[in-house]
């Protein structure tokens, strides 16, 4: 079938992820949505790689996974510390600084 469909899927996933970021409160869920966006990107990369018949896209995809993993480490560390000090993972509670 036409790999373009994978692109549509990727775009869809990306949008879902972005929407999730915008509408969910829980930091963890937010973060998962971002991961979803990253993976949508991976899908797109791979699809393109397939279309162009070269491996650059797939290489990038591998890097992305590594990066995502690193992000998870850092991100969770931060979120957990926030959770421990506030006893809530809602990003909306963290609004001391404004204006």
């Amino acid at each position: 079938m036409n790999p373009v469909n994978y692109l549509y899927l990727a775009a869809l996933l990306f949008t879902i992820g972005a929407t999730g970021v915008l509408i969910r409160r829980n930091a963890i869920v937010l973060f998962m949505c971002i991961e979803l966006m990253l993976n949508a990107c991976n899908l797109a990369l791979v699809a393109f790689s397939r279309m162009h018949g070269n491996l650059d896209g797939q290489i990038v995809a591998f890097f992305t996974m590594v990066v995502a993993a690193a992000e998870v480490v850092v991100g969770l560390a931060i979120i957990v510390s926030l959770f421990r000090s506030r006893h809530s993972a809602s990003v909306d509670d963290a609004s001391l600084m404004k204006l």
Partner: protein
Amino acid sequence: MSTAAVHSLWTIAADPIPRIDAPKIEYGQLSPVLIVVGAAIVGMLIEAFVPRRARYYAQVFVSVVALCASFAAVVALAAQGYGTTKAHIAAMGAVAVDGPALFLQGTILLAALVGLFTFAERRLDPAAHGNRVDSFAAQASSVPGSDSEKAAVKAGLTTTEVFPLLLFAVAGLLVFPAANDLLALFVALEVLSLPLYLLCALARRRRLMSQEAAVKYFLLGAFASAFTLFGIALLYGYAGSVSYAAIAQVVDGNVPHITPALANTMGNDALLLIGAAMVVMGLLFKVGAVPFHMWTPDVYQGAPTPVTGFMAAATKVAAFGALLRLLYVVLPGMRWDWRPVMWAVAIVTMLVGAIVAITQTDIKRLLAYSSIAHAGFILAGVIATSRDGVSSVLFYLAAYSFVTIGAFAVVTLVRDAGGEATHLSGWAGLGRRSPLVAAVFAVFLLAFAGIPLTSGFTGKFAVFRAAAEGGAVPLVVIGVIASAVAAFFYIRVIVLMFFSEPRPEGPTVAVPSPLTMAAIAVGVVATVVLGVAPQYFLDLANQAGVFVR
């Protein structure tokens, strides 16, 4: 899904892949980055093996040596003419070694060095239980105000991990402006971001705000980088390659041999436009341009002030470097598409930054908004799309970074019982209490405001001139108006410091160690020298004004 399609997919994947020959890496030309990364790793080993008492000194020593060595390497490369004649692309096309890259790397390294001094400052906070403390949390993992934290403080723990983190961030920053393919760009982006996220969370005082800043920075940063990545994907899809050179060729439409797939995607401009827009957006987020600026005030306010200073200076430099390279190397072909958009962004950024800053009451937030406004001014230079444009931006970045670090260093000095007194009301009458500090800060503010004989004026003049020559006169006029508005709040602070009565219970000025003094001194010297005798540096920036393709 039809089996045929699946089968065909498999068969193609199963084809013998052309064998990859071992990559050829020019270690000499990458040495600046490599040194820093190496030092960072050494730093981690130190954390692991060196006894706690000695860590601080070991870390500071290693970091300073590394940064100096790396800077020396940059200078050496520049001296060998890599900045001009021998400029070329190293590491299999991943990293460019050319004028802008070296200039910005040099700037970043100096900024990092100065920033490091402020990181290492241990005199400002009153010694806790007899051991000197810096401005970072005793134990990041312990809950603010909990017993464990008290214990950690009592035990005299310090988060010496900040130094390796700083170095990793620096490594990323060094690659960022030099990245010559989208992959390197993305990796560098993450490498510089992740340590900064952590550093933001490590404040000793006001830890809640610090953590909040970290969360916001992290989430929004990740969000932005997701966009960037998607943009990368689309660009790759458009051009069938992630290397700048190749993409540029496709954009310009002069490709040696066009595969059918490429022919297919090339026709689809949407891929190019959307992709480019998303990548650019990721970079605009880093430079803090409107409407991607909103993280800046909160993060600047919440993060430990030394981190803020370093971040404000170095990140902006690197990000603008990357932006320049992207726009000048990859997308000159579609100049006519992105220039109007950037016009709009620049205008909005200048105005919003200047106007919102007027009503700020916290000095760090004030500086945050001023940095937004400055991002707008620099964008005006970026838009010029001329060699003058590049060099003017380079100069502006160099000038701006030192002023910023210096200013934030001064902010660390004004303290009351609760740590730094960042609320403006506390700064009233500072000029009476300690004229010297107030005068120094006034110099920085005047530089921000772009008053002649300061580096700020030279830089502003440079970018505006470039913009005007690039035919962006309206932009210049608006920029001028914006700077008039901006002048108002810098002046406000000066008035506060010199003309209003000091509060009896107002904050005092701590006497720093030579480290911070050095940081501030460097800032002042740079400000004045770049203002009065900028010729040498302008020449430097001008020579460095050409990107290798």
